[in-house]
C-alpha cells in the first residue's frame, strides 16, 4: 500500500444520474485511494453486459454446490427433529441407534442456535437438553456410512418428551393466559442479513416490545399534534403471512474435522460467519477453521452462520473421525431454517389536503416464531418526508420455527401497508398517485423512476378503479422501494499478476447467485486494461482475504472497492517496473485494451510483455474496504426503486393474474447490468409469489406445519410469470473507488404493494391481507358490496 506523508488529497467525483443532469462533488479522500473512476459511458468493461464467468460451469453441471461435495470416507447424516411443538426433553436414548449397521457417530445437541434465548438464564425451564419450542426443532443427528443407514438408525432414537402447552397462532398468543413460549423475557441476536431485534425490551406474556423508532433513531416529532393538524386522515389494518425462504439447495454442510483444523463446505451467504460461529462453539482459533462455498443454491437471508446443521455435522465429524455430509431435507428446511415474519399492521396517516404529510403512526404485531425481528416499520420511517413518525412494533412469540432475515427484512410487508395507504390518500384528496408521490417524496432517483416507469407501462391509459366492463377487470398499480446502502468493512481482496501476464483475484466473498464473481473480474479488468474473462476469480474460501456476508444488498458496494484498490496497487507496481522503458513516470503509464502504454500514442507494450518484466514470478496487491468517502455532512445513502404492475382480476373466480411488471431501479454505479436484471426479475417474482401464493400454514390444534413441502407451500412458477421490463438508472454519489451499490433487496420491496394497488385499480376493492388468494378477493368484494348496500 502507498503511504505518503500527506494522508489525503482532493478529488472530484461525478454525481447525479447519467442522462439526467450530472454534476460533480469535490471530496477529500485518502491518498492511497485510486484515481476517480469516470462514469460507465467512459469505461470499457465496467457497466457492460457481461455473461457470467461461471456460466459454463453452471450449464454443464460441473459447478460444485455443497450438496454435491463428495469426500473420501464421507459419512451421511440424518437429523432427528422434534415431533411436538413444545416440550421438555426428558431423555434421548441413542443406544439402539449407535449399534445400528453403518452408524459411526451420534450427537445430541447441547445448545440450540437460531432461537431467542431467555435473557435471565436462571428463569429458563430446568432441563438437560434444549427446550423444544417448535415442531421440527433439531435435537440430534446420526452419521452413518450411507444415507439409508443414517435414516434407518434415526428411527431407533427414542426421545421422551414432557409435553408443554403450546400456541402457534399469533392472535391467540397475544391473549392473556395464552401458553407461554418462553417462561421469561427472551432476546435474539441479529444476523449479517439483518433481522433480530433490539435487546432488553420489555416482555409481557408472549409479546415482546413494542420497540419504538427504527434503525436511524427514535420516533420523530409528535404524532398527536400531527394528526390534530391534519386535514385528512387515512388508516388501514393490514396482515401479511409468514413466508419461507425455500432455496432450492437446502441448508447444509460437509464438515471435515482433522487434527490440524476443521474444513467445512457450507451452503452459506457468509463464509466468515460460518467460520466465526464454529470457532466459537468448538473453541477453535479462527485460523483453524476453513469454510468453502464454491457455488450455492439460494439463501435469500436464511443462510448465515453455521446453524444447528453446521454444529451437528462438525460434532459428528469430530466423533467419527471422518467427513460428514448433512443436508436438511425439504421438510426440515421449511420448519427449522428460517422465514419472513408475519405482520399485523395498523397504519394511520395524517395529511393536508395538498398531500403534505403531517403524521404517520404504525402499530405492528408480527411473529418471528421463537425468534425476534418482526418489525415492518422501515418504509413508514424512511420513505416519505413527514415531520412526525411513530412506529410501535412488537414481536409475538409462537411455537414455530425462528424467522431469519429474508430479503429486505420488514420492508415488503411494510410497503404492502404504506403504499396502499398512500394510494388511499391520493384518492381521498383526488390526486393522481404518482403526482402525490412527486409532492411528498424527496428522492430524486425515485422521481425519475416514476416518470420512466409511467411512460413504459402507459400510466396515462389507467382507468378509474373497477371501471372495466365484464368479469375480468384489469388495473395498473404502483409502489415504491426504500433500502439503505450498508457497507461491510470486512471486505478485502488480493490481486496477483504472474509473470506470464495472467491475473488472479482472491477473496473469501461468496457468490450466492448475484454474480459477484463476474463483477469482481470486471472491476479488476477495467483497472488493468483487460477483459473480464482474462481474470481468474477465486472466491468462497476463508483461506483468502476476508469477504463480506452477502445480505442486505451489501456485497457489491462492499467488496468491489477493495478489488479495485488491490488491482490499482498491483497495477502501480507493474507500472513502476516498465515506466523507465516507456519513458514516463509510473503515474503516466496507461493500461487499456490489453496494452501498457506511455499515454495515448506513446510507446507501448502488450500486457503480457509488460508482465515479463516482473523481477519475481508474481506481484500482488492487497486491499481492504476503505471508509466511504464523505464530507462529513452527507446523509446515509438510500436506494430507491419504483415498480409498476398490471393485473387482470377475474371477479367471478377471484383469481389475480399479474400480466406485466415494469421495474425501475437504481443501485449506484451498475457493474453488470445483465446480472442486475436477473436480480430484479428474481426480486419481482419473489414479491408476486409472496403477494399471491406463499403461506406457511400451521395447524393450531397440533402445532405442526401442514404444508412443509413445495407442493402445498405454493411458489410462483413458470406459468404465472409475467412480462418483466427492467429499467436501470446509473446513479453516482462519489462514495467509494467504484461507487457501486446493491440491488437484491430493493428489487423485492415494493412488489406486493404494487400488486395490491393494481388489484384495487382493477376491481375498486382493497385487499389488505396477504396472500391475496381467490377466496380473499371474493370475500373482499362481497364485503364491499354489503357495505355499499348498507350505505
Amino acid at each position, binding site marked *: 500500500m502507498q503511504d505518503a506523508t500527506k494522508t489525503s488529497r482532493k478529488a472530484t467525483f461525478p454525481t447525479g*444520474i447519467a442522462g439526467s443532469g450530472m454534476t460533480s462533488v469535490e471530496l477529500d479522500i485518502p491518498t492511497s485511494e485510486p484515481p476517480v473512476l469516470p462514469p460507465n459511458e467512459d469505461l470499457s468493461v465496467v457497466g457492460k453486459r457481461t455473461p457470467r464467468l461461471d456460466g459454463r460451469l453452471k450449464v454443464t*453441471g460441473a459447478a460444485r454446490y455443497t450438496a454435491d461435495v463428495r469426500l473420501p470416507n464421507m459419512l451421511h447424516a440424518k437429523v432427528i427433529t422434534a415431533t411436538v411443538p413444545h416440550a421438555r426433553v426428558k431423555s434421548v436414548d441413542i443406544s439402539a441407534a449407535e449399534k445400528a449397521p453403518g452408524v459411526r457417530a451420534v450427537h445430541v445437541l447441547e445448545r440450540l442456535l437460531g432461537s431467542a434465548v431467555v435473557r435471565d438464564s436462571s428463569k429458563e425451564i430446568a432441563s438437560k437438553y434444549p427446550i423444544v419450542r417448535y415442531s421440527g426443532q433439531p435435537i440430534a443427528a446420526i452419521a452413518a456410512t450411507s444415507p439409508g443407514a443414517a435414516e434407518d438408525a434415526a428411527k431407533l432414537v427414542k426421545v421422551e418428551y414432557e409435553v408443554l402447552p403450546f400456541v402457534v397462532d399469533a392472535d391467540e398468543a397475544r391473549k392473556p393466559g395464552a401458553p407461554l413460549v418462553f417462561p421469561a423475557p427472551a432476546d435474539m441476536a441479529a444476523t449479517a442479513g439483518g433481522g433480530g431485534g433490539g435487546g432488553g425490551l420489555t416482555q409481557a406474556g408472549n409479546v415482546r416490545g413494542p420497540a419504538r423508532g427504527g434503525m436511524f433513531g427514535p420516533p420523530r416529532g409528535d404524532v398527536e399534534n400531527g394528526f390534530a393538524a391534519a386535514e385528512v386522515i387515512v388508516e388501514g389494518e393490514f396482515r401479511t403471512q409468514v413466508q419461507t425462504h425455500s432455496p432450492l439447495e437446502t441448508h447444509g454442510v460437509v464438515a471435515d474435522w482433522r487434527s490440524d483444523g476443521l474444513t467445512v463446505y457450507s451452503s452459506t451467504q457468509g463464509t466468515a460467519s460460518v467460520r466465526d460461529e464454529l470457532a466459537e462453539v468448538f473453541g477453535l482459533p479462527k485460523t483453524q477453521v476453513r469454510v468453502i462455498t464454491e457455488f450455492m443454491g439460494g439463501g*435469500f437471508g436464511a443462510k448465515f452462520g453455521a446453524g444447528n446443521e453446521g454444529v451437528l455435522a462438525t460434532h459428528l465429524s469430530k466423533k467419527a473421525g471422518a467427513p460428514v455430509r448433512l443436508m436438511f*431435507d*425439504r421438510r426440515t428446511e421449511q420448519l427449522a431454517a428460517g422465514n419472513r415474519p408475519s405482520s399485523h399492521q395498523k397504519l394511520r396517516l395524517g395529511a393536508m389536503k395538498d398531500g403534505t404529510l403531517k403524521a404517520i403512526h404504525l402499530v405492528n404485531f408480527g411473529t418471528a416464531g421463537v425468534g425476534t425481528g418482526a418489525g415492518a416499520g422501515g418504509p413508514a420511517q424512511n420513505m416519505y418526508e413527514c415531520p412526525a413518525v411513530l412506529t410501535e412494533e412488537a414481536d409475538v412469540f409462537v411455537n414455530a420455527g425462528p424467522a431469519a432475515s429474508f430479503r429486505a427484512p420488514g420492508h415488503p410487508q411494510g410497503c404492502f401497508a404504506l403504499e396502499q395507504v398512500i394510494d388511499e390518500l391520493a384518492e381521498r384528496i383526488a390526486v393522481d398517485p404518482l403526482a402525490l408521490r412527486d409532492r411528498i417524496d424527496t428522492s430524486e432517483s425515485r422521481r425519475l423512476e416514476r416518470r420512466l416507469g409511467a411512460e413504459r407501462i402507459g400510466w396515462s391509459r389507467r382507468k378509474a378503479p373497477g371501471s372495466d366492463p365484464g368479469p375480468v377487470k384489469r388495473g395498473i398499480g404502483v409502489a415504491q422501494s426504500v433500502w439503505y446502502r450498508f457497507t461491510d468493512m470486512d471486505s478485502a481482496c488480493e490481486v496477483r499478476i504472474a509473470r506470464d501476464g495472467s491475473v488472479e483475484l482472491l477473496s473469501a466473498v461468496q457468490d450466492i*447467485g448475484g454474480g459477484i464473481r463476474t463483477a469482481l473480474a470486471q472491476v479488476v479488468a477495467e483497472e488493468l486494461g483487460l477483459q473480464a474473462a482474462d481474470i481468474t476469480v477465486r472466491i468462497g474460501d476463508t483461506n483468502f482475504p476476508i469477504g463480506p456476508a452477502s445480505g442486505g444488498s451489501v456485497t457489491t458496494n462492499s467488496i468491489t472497492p477493495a478489488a479495485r484498490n488491490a488491482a490499482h496497487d498491483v497495477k502501480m507496481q507493474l507500472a513502476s517496473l516498465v515506466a523507465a522503458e516507456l519513458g514516463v513516470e509510473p503515474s503516466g503509464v496507461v493500461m487499456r485494451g490489453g496494452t501498457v502504454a506511455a499515454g495515448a500514442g506513446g510507446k507501448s507494450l502488450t500486457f503480457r510483455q509488460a508482465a515479463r518484466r516482473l523481477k519475481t514470478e508474481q506481484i500482488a496487491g492487497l486491499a481492504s474496504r476503505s471508509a466511504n468517502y464523505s464530507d462529513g455532512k452527507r446523509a446515509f445513502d438510500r436506494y430507491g426503486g419504483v415498480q409498476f404492475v398490471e393485473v387482470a382480476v377475474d371477479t367471478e373466480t377471484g383469481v389475480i393474474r399479474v400480466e406485466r411488471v415494469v421495474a425501475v431501479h437504481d443501485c449506484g454505479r451498475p457493474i453488470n447490468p445483465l446480472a442486475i436484471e436477473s436480480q430484479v426479475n428474481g426480486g419481482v417474482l419473489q414479491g408476486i409469489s409472496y403477494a399471491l401464493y406463499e403461506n406457511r400454514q400451521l395447524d393450531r390444534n397440533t402445532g405442526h406445519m401442514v404444508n412443509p413441502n413445495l407442493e402445498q407451500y405454493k411458489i410462483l412458477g*413458470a406459468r404465472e410469470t409475467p412480462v418483466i421490463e427492467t429499467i*436501470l438508472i446509473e446513479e453516482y454519489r462519489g462514495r467509494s473507488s467504484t461507487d457501486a451499490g446493491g440491488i437484491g433487496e430493493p428489487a423485492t420491496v415494493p412488489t406486493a404493494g404494487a400488486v395490491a394497488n393494481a388489484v384495487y385499480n382493477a376491481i375498486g376493492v382493497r385487499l389488505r391481507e396477504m396472500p391475496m388468494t381467490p377466496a380473499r378477493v371474493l370475500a373482499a368484494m362481497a364485503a364491499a358490496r354489503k357495505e355499499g348496500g348498507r350505505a
Partner: protein
Amino acid sequence: MSAPVPLTHITRARNGRPAKRRAQFTVNGEPVDVLFAPHKTLLEVLREDLNLTGTKHGCELGECGACAVLVDGEPVLACLVLGLDAEGRDVTTVEGMADGPALHPIQEAFAQYGAAQCGYCTPSFMLTAQVLLEKNPSPSRDEIREALSSSICRCTGYVKIYEAVELAAARMRGEEADILEEAIYGR
C-alpha cells in the same frame, strides 16, 4: 417405464438390509453396470453411485423439478423413479448435453443470457427445454412456459430462462440471433 422389479426377487443380506441389485443401462450414451441398494431412486444412483452430481437434489418429493433427467428422451423426475427402473433405458443428464467441449445451443444461450443465476435449477430447465425444442422448433412463449412448468426457479425469475430458450431455438433453426439488450436510462 417398465414394471419395477418384483420385491420377491430381492434377497436379504445378513444385516437386515436388502442386498444390492445390479442394473445395466446407458447414461449419456455410455453403458453403465451398477450395483446399488434396490430402494434407491435414479437420482440417488446418478449422484451417489455414478458421481453425476449435475442432476440436483431439491426436495426428493417430485415437487421442485430440480432432478429432471431424460429417460429414453422424455423428461422424468429422477427422484420419483427407482434406479432399477432404468434397466435397459437411455438416461441423459446435464453432463451429456454438450458434445465434447462444444456446448449445446441451449447451454450456450443459458450461459450467455445469465439464465443460470444461482444455477441450481438450471440443468432441469435445460433438459426439459431440449425435449421441447426437439418436438417443437418454434415454440411460442406460452408453449415454453407450459413445457418448463415442472421445475421451480427461486432466484432468476424465469424471464431470462424463456429468453434463452427462444434464443437457442432461433439458433437451432439456423437463424442468426443474439441476446436482447435492455434499456439503461441515459444511454
